[in-house]
């Protein structure tokens, strides 16, 4: 078969696998939350049923073009990230479309979905959406600053913008991981990771008790379903990006799932034990400790 067609087929397969991992993790996470609340919790496969149901509800309301495009942008950013991250190191087919300098593109993709969502939900004119968008953009931007500093630090350390190269440098043993060679950047990124996962203490964006559900307030039926198709893909893609940057990447699917799950659980465990920050508190948080840590990590590189 034509190599490019093979590549596309494998890319689709990758997206499908990632989506499934995300869905299961999603159900598992909610189970963890329930058990901490001493409840039995949902069935692990409930997210799948919810998705099917949402796809089979009517969509009735017309809010404008951007309203339609919002979920699509969001999905694009999730799928785009998956396609450009080298998922399995050394595997020709599961490196997908990664290329030299892909790290910059991925950083853009991470923000792109948020912007699309913001434009889409603002078009609905629903005040709760607008509040959610304002909070979300403020918080994501604040979390992005230390995140980019941490990434820059790794780029400078490896003199490369290619994720594949950064992963290859980390091969050859546990102690080669960025986690050990650049601990300050890793710590910064781990804090920023919490900020971008929208879990406690940084979940004021969706705040169901105060502003019904934040940006997606008006989204329903298949729009909501597209959003919740993206959610697991995006979360796992983001997690994998962090695994590649800081924890040595993965050489096979077993390693991939193990590392992704462990890292994912970091935000889940933090989420179960911490109460919610207000927006101003979380912005202040990100612009204090993680920001200073990020700057330090770049400074420290000069002396190593």
């Amino acid at each position, binding site marked *: 078969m034509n190599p490019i067609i093979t590549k596309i087929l494998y890319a689709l397969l990758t997206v499908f696998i990632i989506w499934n991992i995300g869905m299961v993790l999603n159900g598992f996470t909610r189970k963890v939350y329930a058990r901490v609340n001493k409840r039995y919790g*949902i069935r692990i496969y409930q997210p799948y049923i919810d998705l099917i*149901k949402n796809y089979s509800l009517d969509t009735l309301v017309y809010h404008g073009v951007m309203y339609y495009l919002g979920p699509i942008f969001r999905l694009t950013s999730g799928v785009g990230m998956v396609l450009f991250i080298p998922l399995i190191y050394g595997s020709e087919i599961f490196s997908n479309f990664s290329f030299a300098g892909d790290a910059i593109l991925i950083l853009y993709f991470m923000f792109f979905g948020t912007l699309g969502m913001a434009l889409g939900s603002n078009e*609905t004119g629903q005040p709760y959406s607008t509040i959610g968008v304002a909070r979300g953009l403020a918080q994501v931007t604040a979390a992005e600053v230390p995140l980019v500093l941490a990434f820059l630090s790794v780029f400078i350390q490896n003199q490369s913008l290619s994720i594949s190269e950064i992963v290859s440098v980390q091969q050859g043993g546990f102690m080669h991981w960025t986690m050990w060679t650049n601990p300050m950047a890793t710590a910064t990124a781990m804090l920023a990771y919490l900020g971008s996962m929208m879990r406690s203490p940084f979940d004021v964006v969706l705040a169901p008790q105060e502003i019904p559900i934040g940006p997606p307030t008006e989204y329903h039926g298949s729009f909501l379903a597209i959003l919740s198709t993206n959610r697991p893909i995006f979360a796992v893609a983001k997690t994998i990006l962090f695994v590649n940057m800081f924890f040595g990447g993965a050489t096979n699917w077993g390693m991939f799932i193990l590392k992704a799950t462990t890292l994912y659980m970091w935000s889940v465990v933090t989420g179960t034990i911490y109460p919610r920050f207000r927006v101003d508190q979380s912005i202040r948080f990100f612009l204090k400790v993680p920001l200073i840590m990020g700057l330090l990590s770049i400074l420290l590189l000069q002396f190593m």
Partner: protein
Amino acid sequence: MEKFKDFKKRTVIAPDGEKIEIDPMKDYYCDAIPTPRKDYDKIPGILENFKNWARSESLWILAYGSGCGAIEMRPLMTPKHDAYRYGIQWRPTPRQANLLMISGYLSVKTLRIVVRAYEQMPSPKYVMGLGSCTINGGMYWDSYNTINRLDHFMPVDTYVTGCMPRPEALIAGFDELKKIIRAGKGVGADKYAENFAWYKENQKKILGDVGLPEYSW
């Protein structure tokens, strides 16, 4: 755009008597009268059954407490009853809910909001009435400010009796509703669309013309 070509500005009277002119292009409400779902009754079969199964196993409730029975919904979320494990979840916005629980008496004031919330829900949508108040008015049957028959204002799929119903009764009610949905009989939204004029007339008899948009999804 073809669909919106005969949109004209209209004047509505706000609850405090003030006249407001509404520009339809800036209005957030849809202009179309509801129509029954196309696939309803006409393409039964494996796909529709599968969809109905998914709909019945994933009931998202609009948490709208309208009467004293609302208090019984809270224990359902707590460890003792934990309705989540039956696929029942609470959503804070009507757009994402497919089950409206009317938890008891509806005062004239809340009826307006409830009708609007119902219309904003995507179909197929279901309504569950709790307590004797929704069936015949209960202890408020001759009250001047509550309505006494819910199914004159929106189609009700299932009632849960009691004053007030216990959480166990609610769970039994959910089971009943699931059976109805799976049998393909959860067609309240279509009934509402088919008898739209009658329902609107009943609503207006109680509410008067208070500037509620004719249709609000």
